[in-house]
């Protein structure tokens, strides 16, 4: 996988060190280099007032259209509530076998569910969502192995039940795809 370089494009303010740590973990998981960059994109263009959310479908296309020299995969990171036209919300999404993905930590926060804030848990969840979406760009579909990061999760609790690693099976699929 060493022919890939991933760039995480941060939209909005993230706690210092938070993203660099995530980048480090992503780099370990996919064995490639990962950089972090701040975005200048004006999110107002993606705001949908009737839903009071941001259009993840348009954002994904926008990210996909960005030309950032030296990087083969681009992942947009957000703090705002994302939706796609057909779904009430998404944690993230990516182009299957493509080069781009997006992820938001908005719905990953405990506070959204009336529970105590938990910065560590938030970190774990966000890391898993990002690694998951990148997996899709490498052509991985949802995996039935219980704690594989590619297991589909529609609830935060589902995310908590898996690890942030690919299972052996998913790993070998990437290896074959990348040959």
């Amino acid at each position, binding site marked *: 996988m060493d022919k890939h370089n991933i760039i995480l494009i941060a939209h909005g303010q993230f706690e210092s*060190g938070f993203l660099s*740590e995530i980048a*480090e*973990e992503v780099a*370990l998981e996919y064995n490639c280099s990962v950089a972090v960059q701040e975005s200048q994109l004006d999110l107002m263009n993606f705001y949908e007032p009737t839903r009071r959310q941001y259009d993840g*479908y348009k954002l994904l296309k926008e990210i996909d259209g960005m030309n950032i020299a030296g990087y083969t995969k681009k992942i947009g990171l957000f703090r705002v509530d994302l*939706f*796609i*036209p*057909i*779904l*009430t*919300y*998404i944690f993230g*999404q*990516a*182009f*299957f076998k493509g080069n781009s993905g997006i992820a938001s930590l908005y719905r990953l926060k405990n*506070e*959204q*569910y*009336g*529970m105590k804030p938990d910065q*560590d848990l938030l*970190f774990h969840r966000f890391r898993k969502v990002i690694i998951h979406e990148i997996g*899709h760009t490498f052509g991985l*579909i*949802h995996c*039935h*192995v*219980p704690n594989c990061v590619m297991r*589909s999760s*529609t*609830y935060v*609790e*589902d995310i908590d*039940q898996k690890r942030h*690693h690919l299972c052996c099976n998913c790993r070998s699929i990437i290896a074959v795809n990348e040959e």
Partner: protein
Amino acid sequence: MSKNISILIVDDEESVRDSLYNWFIEDGYRVECAGNAKEALSIIESREFDIVLADIKMPGMDGLEMHRRIKAQNKETIVIVMTAFASVDTAVQALKDGAYDYITKPFDPDDLSHLVRNAAKQITLKAENEALRNKMNELENVEDIVGKSEGMLKVLKEVKSVAQSNSSVIISGESGTGKELIARAIHFNSPRRYFPLVSVHCGALTESLLESELFGHEKGAFTGAMYNRKGRFEMADGGTIFLDEIATISAKTQVELLRVLESKSFIRVGGNKEISSDFRVICATNKDLKKMVENGTFREDLFYRLNVVNINIPPLRERVEDIPMLMNHFIIKYCTAMSRDMVTIEPAALKRLEEFEFPGNVRELENMIERAIVIGNGKEIRLADLPMGKDIIYSSVESLDDLEKKYILQILNKYDWNITRSAKALKVDRVTLYNKIKKYDLSTGKS
């Protein structure tokens, strides 16, 4: 399951088609799209689809008419109609005409995947023939349950026989024996495996939080409840709910739990609608529930409802012969995770492990191996790398080093020995932390 199932998406909006296409492709289905009914019908003429997901309102031919024609072509095809709120009436008409179900736009991600999984399950079940279904397959997803001892083989045999049924199960065993792994094994070898396994750690939550966790809550039910939230019983619909540390729940929660088990329905906190859910329940405990029933701290009726099958996991000290296998398993796990070369183990160290009592069972062994790999020489786990390999000399005066050591250990334990998180909390980098662990000879086994 989804591998061979094909879906045709019919919608006139490109963004809807694209989003759904991507969603289902990532879920492993075979997917095609059509922008209108005419196009859809001509695709269906040349290829068969298991599921058609169609918008009910489209220019040209509407979804109802298209549905009739699809059914005329192949009545096995499952048609799910998508509708906006305004046209629910039409959707109901579609149901009368034999549509499988309808869904209102925009949908919750979970509702969508549930609906399609249910449809897919119906297709798969139809396809599987009876003989094949009854064949006892090998257990799957049990790689993490390691051991060939008589005790573990018995446990696995019980897992196999109980997996196919719907019975409630209580898994008992000391802490660290891996009760959650057994619960997973049951779920992932049961017909419910394509639906969620939802875990609740009852001991970690207060009575009121547990209630909201289990039954969900409506928006505004209490301060901070910004969204409606499904409870674990609702999430487990079609699947399994795993209640860990069941002995810790309060008398009130016991009553409520019993009611849910009897009626398979409940009401969200702050809500008024009865919600039903089809789940299987698996509990775990390190307490003697029977004794708790005798002394009146656990309801007898609840106990009998939960304890249809009991699986007891033996403590590690009663299956010493599994230690070498377990050790290898953890060496592979951690060397791979840390991208290191595989290490071996010195005979003296192995002997000491086999003699050790392991009050913390497999989890304690796992922690020891992880630590030994972190602080070791990278080639071999030596006796000195194990916490019990050295005599500890206590000094009466607490030096600065002692304080640092204590503090680091406290943080490490807090973060379950996750080096990255601990290093962050300590505001040092990981290399520094590794060096400190080595310097102070810290371990997970004691503190």
